[in-house]
């Protein structure tokens, strides 16, 4: 479990990126961390990875402190950063030299993921495009079978077919012991992939719920008119009227639309907080 407990962090003590932030991430879930540019998503991930240290509060991952970066912790933790760097070697050499650091690395899985990403074989990593390098790193990260896999903007640089391949590959790599945390500002890339969502804005967590909880409280639908309906949190014009996010008083089922949910949360943070904290 990843436990962030009352964490405050900022690059200067006068301006905090997030303050008294708490969350618990449980194994067997794929979490989506959403937020606007500059909201502090990457900084939060780096705090979790032990690359940055909180000003206050504590982070624990399965009872270990990431900031100590002990080998036993790092063997079970993999971070795919936004800006990737891979050495100038062949893919074969890359796995030959790096995979022994990860005791649960599975080469057949790695090759399977590469095939699913339509990656050419035997290439030198420097000869690959940025998107292809990202696919190598994502495949490697997934094949390490670490208990904690964190991806920072993993879909940046991937073309449209690759984004759906990404969703397929990542969802197949989840197991009951693993936590996958994906940060992105491209909300649609996580459609049909994540099962829980964390929205970070203005140094606070506005939403930290499973999609089931969200669809229980909110309804995503289309209305002919949205102006006089006080259930509506967010609306945008569409061909059939208005696509809306509204309070789900009738307990009707609907599919969570991440992009509209994100806009609704950004437009009505106080109301969202009230809805989700209502008993």
């Amino acid at each position, binding site marked *: 479990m990843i436990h962030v407990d009352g964490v405050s962090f900022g690059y200067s003590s006068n301006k905090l990126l997030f303050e008294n932030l708490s969350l618990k991430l449980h194994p067997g879930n794929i979490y989506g961390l959403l937020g606007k540019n500059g909201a502090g998503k990457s900084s939060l991930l780096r705090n979790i990875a032990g690359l940055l240290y909180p000003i206050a509060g504590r982070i624990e991952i399965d009872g270990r402190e990431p900031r100590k*970066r002990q080998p036993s912790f*790092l063997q079970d*933790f993999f*971070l795919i950063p936004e800006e990737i760097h891979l050495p*100038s070697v062949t893919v074969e*050499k890359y796995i030959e*030299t790096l995979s022994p*650091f990860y005791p649960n690395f599975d080469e057949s899985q790695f090759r399977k993921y590469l095939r699913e990403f339509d990656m050419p074989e035997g290439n030198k990593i420097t000869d690959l495009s940025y998107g292809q390098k990202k696919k190598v790193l994502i495949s490697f990260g997934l094949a390490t079978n670490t208990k904690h896999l964190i991806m920072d903007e993993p879909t940046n640089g991937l073309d449209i077919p690759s984004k759906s391949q990404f969703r397929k590959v990542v969802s197949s790599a989840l197991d009951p012991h693993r936590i996958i945390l994906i940060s992105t500002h491209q909300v649609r890339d996580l459609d049909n992939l994540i099962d829980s969502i964390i929205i970070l804005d203005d140094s606070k967590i506005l939403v930290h719920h499973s999609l089931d909880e969200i669809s229980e409280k909110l309804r995503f639908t289309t209305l002919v008119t949205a102006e006089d309906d006080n259930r509506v949190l967010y609306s945008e014009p569409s061909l059939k009227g208005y696509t809306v996010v509204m309070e789900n008083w009738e307990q009707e089922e609907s599919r969570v639309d991440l992009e509209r949910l994100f806009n609704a949360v950004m437009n009505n943070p106080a109301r969202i907080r009230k809805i989700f904290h209502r008993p």
Partner: protein
Amino acid sequence: MNQVFSFQRYWLLLKLDFAENGRRNALIFGVLFGLMLIMMSPVIDYRKFGFDPIVFHVLAYFMITFCTSLFTSLVFDKYASSNTGINAILIPASQTEKYLAALAANLTFATALIALYVGMHIWFVEILEKEMPGIINKKFHPSFIQLLVYTFFLIQSVCFLGSIYFKKAAYIKTATVFFSALIVFSLINRTYVRNFTNEDPSVSAVPFGQWNVMGRNSIFLIEYSQSTFLLIKIFLVFFVLALWYIAFVRLKEKEI
């Protein structure tokens, strides 16, 4: 699991470093070898030159010392660079292992290069002696070779520390500190020698080196006793070890 040091993880780090940088290092080594060959081989054809080409052997020494110091100053670059830092820091190995792997890679390169230099010097001079029997011995005195080797490693260890001690422009800052310290130390040494010799201007000395007493037509060399010289060498070895240790402490302070 041992969280501080494991031979298996250390070996993996060395293999990783070799895979990532082996080719680049071999290329640099090859270029330096070529340059040394160009600079040091003319001594064989001693007669062609209007001056003593052994001077190029000294210049070759300065060249490899400078180039290796540049190489050394980049030893922790992969941990400091924003591109490579995250990957390098998150490799499942301890700080001690990462530090020792960087040191080993650097020492392998530096030792191979200085050994090659000394070997080439002896080899070329022996060829010359075979070609021209009776020529004045051009081979460096063993104590001078020792001085060159000690100075080489001293400079490398200073650069090794500088590479982790300074955040920006590490090489320039290291060089500034090194040369400043060298000047101060030389001045202190000079004052010390002058005090001993009643300000006699005909006596000069470099730190840890022999004293040169210039007569009218000759130079007398006053060397340290063997035991004192041994102590100086031991001191230098400890000094180098201390610099490596400070580099390790600094690495821990920076929480790399």
